[in-house]
């Protein structure tokens, strides 16, 4: 093959080699992310699952690496864990619903009504809260929910007292934190909805939202809900800051890693949100919402 002239330096030669060998190109493109995905991501998840079946020695506190279903038996038999799981799922559902209800009109305005200029600014406005630290925002809500906070100051003249710290405060704070993750997919989804589709629906009848906008936007709603739902399900900081004495799955994991020093049990608890998410995704698939993507 010496007849092929390769002018230029090594860069040109490399470019030529990559041009002639597509699999080399692909390997160059994907090997680093694949390595990360398999080793760091899936590997960690596998380690988590494996650890969930180990135990700790009661006396030394050291991890005993022997297959054992004890952790899961305890999770199942102790009513408190079931309660905490249901509570966590309830909070995640509530946050998702609140975010969906707030985000939909906002995303619709951004995608369909606002001028292109206003659209850009609104996207920036939705994104900027993500620059601020999670803790700052959570503590800001703690101050607002406190006995002498803004919320009570507004509500007191009407004879109402704010909810104080607890699950409602947790839902409100989480809904605030994850709102951009619901708005952005919805905005992207609604932007893809052609205006002529709205015109056509108006031309043929008047049930535009239920029969046209909602079905077309549904995959985007699902995408957003996956964010808000999973982020809420794994959270343990917000509930510590504004949740009063409430415990969620995340707190159980955290306490078992730290105070109780029972890593295998923490791993077993951590599989609960994973399982819930898998069930959620399978259920979403069943609805056929993802067929129109």
């Amino acid at each position: 093959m010496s007849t092929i002239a390769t002018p230029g330096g090594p860069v040109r030669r490399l470019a030529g080699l990559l041009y002639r060998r597509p699999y080399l190109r692909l390997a160059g493109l994907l090997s680093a992310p694949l390595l990360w995905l398999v080793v760091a991501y899936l590997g960690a998840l596998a380690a988590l699952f494996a650890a969930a079946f180990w135990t700790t020695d009661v006396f030394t506190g050291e991890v005993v690496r022997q297959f054992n279903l004890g952790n899961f038996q305890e999770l199942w038999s102790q009513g408190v864990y079931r309660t905490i799981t249901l509570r966590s799922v309830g909070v995640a559902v509530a946050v998702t619903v609140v975010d969906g209800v707030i985000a939909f009109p906002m995303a619709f305005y951004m995608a369909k009504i606002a001028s292109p200029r206003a659209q850009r600014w609104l996207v920036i406005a939705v994104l900027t809260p993500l620059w601020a630290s999670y803790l700052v925002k959570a503590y800001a809500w703690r101050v607002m929910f406190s006995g002498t906070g803004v919320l009570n100051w507004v509500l007191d003249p009407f004879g109402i007292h704010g909810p104080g710290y607890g699950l409602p405060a947790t839902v409100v704070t989480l809904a605030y934190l994850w709102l951009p993750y619901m708005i952005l997919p919805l905005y992207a989804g609604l932007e893809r909805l052609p205006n002529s589709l709205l015109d056509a629906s108006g031309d043929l009848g008047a049930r535009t939202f239920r029969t046209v906008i909602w079905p077309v936007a549904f995959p985007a709603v699902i995408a957003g809900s996956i964010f808000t739902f999973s982020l809420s399900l794994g959270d343990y900081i917000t509930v510590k800051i504004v949740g009063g004495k409430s415990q969620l799955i995340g707190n159980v994991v955290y306490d078992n890693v730290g105070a109780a020093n029972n890593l295998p049990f923490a791993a077993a608890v951590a599989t609960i949100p994973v399982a819930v998410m898998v069930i959620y995704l399978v259920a979403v698939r069943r609805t056929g919402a993802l067929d129109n993507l």
Partner: protein
Amino acid sequence: MNQMNTEEPGVSAAVTLRGLRKTFGEVTAVDDVDLEIRDGEFFAMLGPSGSGKTTVLRMIAGFETPTSGEVRLGDRVVTKLPPFERDVNTVFQDYALFPHMNVLANVEYGLKVKKVGKKERRERALQALRSVRLEGFDGRRPGQLSGGQRQRVALARALVNRPKVLLLDEPLGALDLKLREEMQVELKAIQREVGITFLFVTHDQEEALTMSDRVAVFNAGRIEQVGTPAEVYEKPASAFVAGFVGTSNLIEGEAAQSILGRPGVYSVRPEKLRVETDLDAKLPEGEHSATGTVAEVVYAGAATRFVVDLDAGGRLVALQQNLQSSSMDVLKLREARVRLVWRREHEFAIPGPT
């Protein structure tokens, strides 16, 4: 300038527009449009983009509210009514089929909203699909159809509601040339079959001329001329119409004075011009001629286009059928001295400023 020679007794108007205006902020999109479209007519609104034709269509459909003026459907004033309370349906340029419904559900949609019984609904929808020659496609999703098929579904979806007037917004704009020509013939046939007034918007002058009974030519938010395709093509009411519908072939200024012996602006269609190489032959009675130099010869298979710079000033385009000549013969005429000859009745004075 509006020509309103449409008040024929016995023919009722399907659509009447009176003093229709629409402004978007500072921009006047539609400026004082009067128009009457007859029952059962295939009517074209022709104009370049931004001439206001689509805005007029959208005001008839009900997607836009006029700034002032009136829209009437039959005897009913519908200026401020929402789209679904008007007896019209629209076929959209991008078809606007609902992607999450199959073809049948798309076609049935309008009837379902109007609470037509399931059995009748199905029957009418299948009938509409038959009329656009799409039998057996009812179970498909729009994403599985070709452009031409989607176009037909959109047509069926509108026709199934039996509107008084069917509005078509650049209905063939998204199709390729071959399909477009087929659909032109088909649309015309479907219109004859269903007998509904078709009002369509296009920027393609050929489409407007071949398909419609009458044409309104739009320019800068106003109607320049309303007439049959032959009237608009052969007797353009303004220089704009002459240029937009067909090739602008104007004789004006000094050229008009020296060739025709009178001042003004005149238009002659390219195919009416005869190219002669014998400059001194006797001119037959009733014909005009102008000498010039061929600047360009464009061979186009069935015909050849000659661009001729006139000695008297100006430039004319002549279209000659390649009946006897071959490409070699005509191409040799580049830079040759020629004489353009035409019959006097084929030159038309164009009123108004140029």
